[in-house]
C-alpha cells in the first residue's frame, strides 16, 4: 500500500502511457509548460501516499459532491484514491466513536505530516454552537487537528472566504480557515463548488514536489487562479471586437457573443472554469450561455447582483499593461473602440471590482 504510485496504478491496470497522458492533461490544466507533464509523471510515479484528514464544517456537501462525483472512474478519481483518506465523515464507513477514533489514530500516526482538507466555514457565534461534531464545536476541532498538519487545503468558497454562510447578515458569525489558523501553510481552493481538477492538481503538486504550489495574495494556487475567467474565455475575442449579447435570447446571444453586459463577472473572477470546464469537460457556465457569477471570489453572494454589468474603464492603454502583468488584479482595461458611443459613455466612468460593489 505504501509503494510507489506507478506500482499501485499498474496493479489497477493503468498503463504508463495512460498515466503520461493524464499528466500531460493535468499540466495543461495547471498552465504548466507542456514539457512539465513528463517531469510530473516521473516524480508522481515514484511518490508515496500521504495521509489525508478531511473535515467538513458548515457546508452543503456540494464540494464533496464536486470532487467525488467528478467523472469517475477516471484517473482523476484514482489519484484521489491514492491518497490515504483517513477521515471523511460523509465518505467513511465508520461512525460515532469509531470515526473519532480513526481521526485520532491518523493524527497520532502521521503527526506533523498529514494533509488537512477543510470544507465549510467555521461559525464563531454562540461560542461555535451553530455547528458541532461529536460534541465539539468546529472551532475546537479545527484548532486541534490543524496543530499536527503539514499543510491545510481550504476547499470551496466557505472554507476559503466564509462563503454563503457568511453572506450578509452572517447569522452564525461564519469565518474562513485562514481567519483562525495563522501558523500553517494554507491553500485556498475557492469555488462554489471548486473545480475537481484544481484539487487533483494541488494533490499532484504535493506528491510531485513535496510542497504546496505557488499561491496568489488570496492564498489560491496561481496555476489555476492566475488569470481571470475573462482572460481565458473563448468568447474573449468578441469582447475585444465589441460584440455583446444584450439579452439572453437576442441575435448576439445566439452568435455566442460576450456576456459582459448581461452581468458576467468573468473580468474580476480568478478561476479555471474556462479551461478546465465542468462535468468531465462537457461545458461551463459561459459556454452554456450564462455569465460567470464570480463564485470563487470573496463575498460573491453580496456583490451586488448577478445580472448587473460590471463597469470597466475605457482606457485602451491599460490593455497592454494588463496583458504584460499576468494576474494584475483589476487591470482588465479594455478598448471599447468598436462599440456604439452610447454604451462606451455609459461604461467609461469607473473601475469596479467586486470589492467596490459591496460598499
Amino acid at each position: 500500500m505504501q509503494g510507489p504510485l506507478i506500482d499501485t496504478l499498474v496493479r489497477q491496470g493503468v498503463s504508463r502511457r495512460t498515466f503520461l497522458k493524464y499528466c500531460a492533461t493535468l499540466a495543461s490544466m495547471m498552465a504548466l509548460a507542456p514539457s512539465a507533464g513528463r517531469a510530473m509523471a516521473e516524480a508522481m510515479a515514484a511518490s508515496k501516499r500521504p495521509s489525508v484528514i478531511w473535515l467538513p464544517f458548515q457546508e452543503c456537501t456540494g464540494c464533496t459532491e464536486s470532487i467525488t462525483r467528478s467523472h469517475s472512474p477516471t484517473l482523476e478519481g484514482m489519484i484521489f484514491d491514492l491518497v490515504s483518506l483517513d477521515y471523511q465523515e460523509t465518505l467513511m464507513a465508520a461512525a460515532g466513536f469509531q470515526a473519532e477514533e480513526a481521526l485520532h489514530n491518523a493524527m497520532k500516526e502521521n503527526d506533523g505530516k498529514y494533509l488537512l482538507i477543510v470544507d465549510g466555514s467555521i461559525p464563531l457565534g454562540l461560542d461555535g454552537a451553530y455547528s458541532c461534531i461529536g460534541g465539539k464545536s468546529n472551532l475546537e476541532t479545527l484548532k486541534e487537528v490543524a496543530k499536527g498538519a503539514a499543510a491545510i487545503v481550504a476547499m470551496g468558497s466557505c472554507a476559503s472566504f466564509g462563503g454563503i454562510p457568511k453572506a450578509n447578515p452572517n447569522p452564525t458569525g461564519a469565518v474562513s480557515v485562514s481567519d483562525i489558523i495563522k501558523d500553517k501553510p494554507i491553500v485556498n481552493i475557492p469555488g462554489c463548488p471548486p473545480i475537481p481538477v484544481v484539487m487533483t492538481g494541488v494533490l499532484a503538486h504535493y506528491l510531485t514536489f513535496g510542497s504546496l504550489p505557488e499561491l496568489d495574495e488570496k492564498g489560491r494556487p496561481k496555476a489555476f487562479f492566475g488569470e481571470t475567467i475573462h482572460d481565458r474565455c473563448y468568447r474573449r475575442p468578441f469582447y475585444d471586437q465589441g460584440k455583446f449579447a444584450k439579452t439572453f435570447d437576442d441575435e448576439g446571444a445566439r452568435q455566442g457573443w460576450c456576456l459582459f453586459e448581461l452581468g458576467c463577472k468573468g473580468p474580476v473572477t480568478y478561476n479555471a472554469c474556462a479551461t478546465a470546464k465542468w462535468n468531465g469537460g462537457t461545458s461551463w457556465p459561459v459556454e452554456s450561455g450564462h455569465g460567470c457569477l464570480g463564485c470563487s471570489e470573496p463575498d460573491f453572494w453580496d456583490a451586488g447582483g448577478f445580472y448587473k454589468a460590471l463597469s470597466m474603464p475605457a482606457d485602451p492603454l491599460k490593455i497592454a499593461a494588463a496583458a504584460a502583468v499576468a494576474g494584475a488584479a483589476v487591470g482588465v482595461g479594455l478598448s471599447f473602440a468598436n462599440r456604439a458611443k452610447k454604451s462606451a459613455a455609459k461604461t467609461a466612468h469607473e473601475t469596479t471590482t467586486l470589492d467596490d460593489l459591496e460598499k
Partner: protein
Amino acid sequence: MTIEAIPIHFIQTPSAPGLSGNAPPLLREVVELVRRLLETGESSTIDLSALPLTPADLDWLQAMLGAGEISITLQASGESTLNETACSGVWWVTHHNENGTVTAQFIEVAFVPELVKAHPQDVQIGLDYLESKLLDS
C-alpha cells in the same frame, strides 16, 4: 406527444463562431519551432487549450497544416490521436476521455511524439515476459 407540439422552437445556431485572428500568429510560432527542431533537434509542444482559440481558429490551423501520412491512435483511458500534418515533424495531438470529450489538444513539433516512445521499464517487463515464455517452451 411529439416534439413539434411544443410551441417553442430553437433557431439553428451558426455552426462555429468566426475567426478571432489569434490563429495566424500561432502558425508563425510553429514555423519557429520547426526551425528549432531542425537546427538543434529540440522538440517542443504548444498547448492549444491554453489559448483563446475559437473552433473556427482550430479548423483554420488544421487546414493550414494539412494532413500527413501517419495517424497514430492510442487507447489509454479514452482515445488519443497523434496525427502527422502535411508538414513532417508537426503533429496534431488530441486527447479524449472515456466519454469522447476532448481533454487536451497540442501541436507537438518533434521527430516522433513523446507518448509514442516505449519506456525502458516497460520494455524490460516485455523482455521478462518473452524470456519466461522461452523457458516454458
